[in-house]
């Protein structure tokens, strides 16, 4: 069944036609994307996700901004927002925020790094399947770009009552968002699955 494609939006069977680089194959019935030819290689994904992991650390260790208000200065890091919610006994919202803004992007990157390393060193452990499934799951729940917009809104609201200085944490957070968007743009898990099958056959 290597010569056919099935549209995963409308279930139409389409013949597989080789396409040029940077072109998209679209479903003739529903116009959804069938396949592209510009996915990143596994090593490229590994490089990007390692960069992302380093940025996650920097974004969480260094404060995103310092705020001067009512005569006192205070700095805030990424997880502090969710942490404050947990301390005020708002567990559900706190966990939701911490999951979407920190846990999901972090686990997305670390599962991806692990999967890339296992595939490139040709080690097919049973965890590999789980890792690839988790990567797929966490792409849905990582909401860095939403967090960045929310952050800007919060800053805008606060700027009336306080002086705000941006810090290193924000810079690495913005870079992290770009890196993770880039990964999601170029990530094609089909390459990973095929590499896994190829390694298993050896």
């Amino acid at each position: 069944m290597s010569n056919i494609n099935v549209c995963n939006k409308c279930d139409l069977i389409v013949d597989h036609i080789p396409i040029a680089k940077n072109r998209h194959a679209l479903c003739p019935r529903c116009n959804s994307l069938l396949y592209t030819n510009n996915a990143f290689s596994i090593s490229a994904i590994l490089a990007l996700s390692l960069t992302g992991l380093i940025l996650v650390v920097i974004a969480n260790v260094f404060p995103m901004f310092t705020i001067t208000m009512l005569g006192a200065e205070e700095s805030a890091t990424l997880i502090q927002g969710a942490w404050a919610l947990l301390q005020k006994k708002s567990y559900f919202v706190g966990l939701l925020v911490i999951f979407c803004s920190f846990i999901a992007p972090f686990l997305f990157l670390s599962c991806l790094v692990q999967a890339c390393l296992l595939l490139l060193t040709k080690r097919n452990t049973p965890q590999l399947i789980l890792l690839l499934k988790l990567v797929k799951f966490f792409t849905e729940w990582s909401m860095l770009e939403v967090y960045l917009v929310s952050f800007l809104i919060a800053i805008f609201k606060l700027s009336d009552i306080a002086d705000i200085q941006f810090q290193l944490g924000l810079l690495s957070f913005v870079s992290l968002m770009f890196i993770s968007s880039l990964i999601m743009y170029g990530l094609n898990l089909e390459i990973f699955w095929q590499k896994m099958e190829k390694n298993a056959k050896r």
Partner: protein
Amino acid sequence: MQNAKDNKIAQCHECNLLIDVKQDVKRQRCPRCFTRVHFRIPRSIQKTWALLITAAVMMIPANFLPISTLTSAGQSTPDTIMSGTIALAKSDDLGIAIIIFIASILVPLFKIIGLMLILLSIQNKIFITQKRKLLLFNAIHWIGKWSIMDLFVISIMVAVLNRGNLLSVDPGYGATCFGLVVILTILAAESFDTRLIWDLNHTNERK
């Protein structure tokens, strides 16, 4: 124009592998990732309806209970989503007010009503063309995560404004309900199988 299902080809939900489905094998698993093989997401319509109705019910407390309470100089003022937006609009932050209004009121409503329209149309209650149904679904799927914005804003405000009685923000029960609405609508979109749009043919489908 042939459907894969009619040719006994299933696509794995997890790894998208194409699998020949054998008639006599019960509980077939994907040879690549060992997920159970289904032609469609099992009980997709029922699941989506259940999640949607729950989300629609949760919209009521999410909008009427206070989402956050601002304490300033000893005075506490609870704010619902709407009153917070109106207060923002009055204090000259019209742009921000519009963004918050769209993200926390219009988007959840759009998601719930849109998915309900798709489901009703699939169940032959109303007529929407297949391509428009998919377009609507793609919009709902894409916009899904943006409605959580208000909760992120609240979490940052809670973290920064913590001077006790002088100036602080506390999350309210409305925030919990709103969080549930966001999760439920995202899950509803996830559990809907777009292939059903082409499976269940419309009785009065125009050619």
